[in-house]
């Protein structure tokens, strides 16, 4: 019983890492509404940005790197592309964390814009220079926009979850 409880606690604490890996393996598809796929957003980017910014020890850089490699394998793009993109996001976020004195959700939401831009720029540079695949720029833009838009929702969910962990 004790071990079961311990395992449950460990699993609960490791949920961000589990989600990071799960969504690298599994890319959910939601039907499009009209011409726009509103639900096409990058959950991993929100997760990485939030945790590197607020709880840097919860999500190791090693896990972020590995999740990126898995993502590349599943999607069939050059190995290391997503890893470098995620690590760039982590670098930018880490810089924001070091440079910011007081944090507020709105500020963090808006600093997510340059972070996303920087990370996607790295992604595009690698795709354009290191692979010969054409790219859906509009879909990437759409995906980035909805990633930015959904950030406050997940911000609240993750904060709630962190509070639950602290309570336990």
């Amino acid at each position, binding site marked *: 019983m004790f071990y079961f409880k311990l395992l449950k606690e460990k699993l609960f604490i490791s949920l961000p890492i589990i989600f990071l890996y799960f969504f690298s393996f599994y890319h959910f598809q939601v039907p499009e509404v009209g011409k726009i796929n509103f639900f096409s957003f990058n959950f991993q980017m929100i997760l990485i940005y939030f945790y590197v910014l607020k709880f840097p020890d919860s999500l190791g850089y090693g896990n972020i790197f590995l999740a990126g490699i898995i993502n590349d394998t599943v999607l069939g793009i050059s190995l*290391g592309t997503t890893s470098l993109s995620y690590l760039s996001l982590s670098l930018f976020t880490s810089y924001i964390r070091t440079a910011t004195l007081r944090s507020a959700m709105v500020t963090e939401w808006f600093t997510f814009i340059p972070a996303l831009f920087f990370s996607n720029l790295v992604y595009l540079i690698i795709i354009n220079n290191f692979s010969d695949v054409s790219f859906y720029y509009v879909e990437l833009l759409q995906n980035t926009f909805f990633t930015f838009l959904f950030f406050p929702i997940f911000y609240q969910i993750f904060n709630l979850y962190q509070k639950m962990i602290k309570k336990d």
Partner: protein
Amino acid sequence: MADHRDDFIIAIRYALLKKGAKQKFSLFFLILLSISIITLDKFSFPLINTTRAVLNDLVYNVAILSSQPSRLKNYLVKETKSHLSVKSENRFLKEEIEYLKKQNFNNAFLSSENQILKNALDLSDIKGIEQDITISARVILDQQSPFLKSILINKGTRSGIIKGMAVFHNDYLLGTIIETNFLSSRVLLLTDLNSKIPVIIGGTDVNAILEGTGKSQNLNLSYLPENYQLETNKIIFSSGKDGFLEAGIPVAATYINKKDNILIKLLGEPNQALIVNVTNGQINR
């Protein structure tokens, strides 16, 4: 100004090199590692290719497991819909059988006429032995990212699949093999931006290149003759000009959408494909 620059450098250095209490690797190390992997992957060293093939097989198998709940949901929805539509489908099928019986006589006549004409022109149907390979495979993963339209099948180099082979579903071309591992392969769908095949428009002698746009209901034809106007309800066939695909494989069809625009849609349905046939260019009948 100098102070600001110093602060920036210190913050960047801190972000890159500071590992934190529970971090095992620094960002700097992992970024360097990523760049090395990308470079090695770009130059396709044999060791990297083998490692990648093993990694692909491993990751695909875990990805299959992670997609099981979603597959179960899709299966249940599909089965329920199919159960509810049995009666109307039965009526439709009966009508279709009657129609096909009539068409069959017509086809037999056309086929014999075609053979006579071929004989007269001294054209032969005999193809090279290497064109007779057909491998049936199961679609194991169809997680289409917003950036690459592809599916994974459960046969790889061990079953004789090589890059460039054509993939069919219900006699319709779906795509081509772009990546092979030992136990699995990746199929680039015709709907992907990177897919380009030479085609001919049915009933005409107009050649073009069929390009994917990311959507199965809106493909693109390039290199059409100047001032050529597409007509609706035309079937688009492979022209065989690439020297690989057999000519005359039905690939796409033109149709009118709700806004009265003539668009091109794929005949095969990649989302519905469970079992596919991999051939080296010839349609599997």
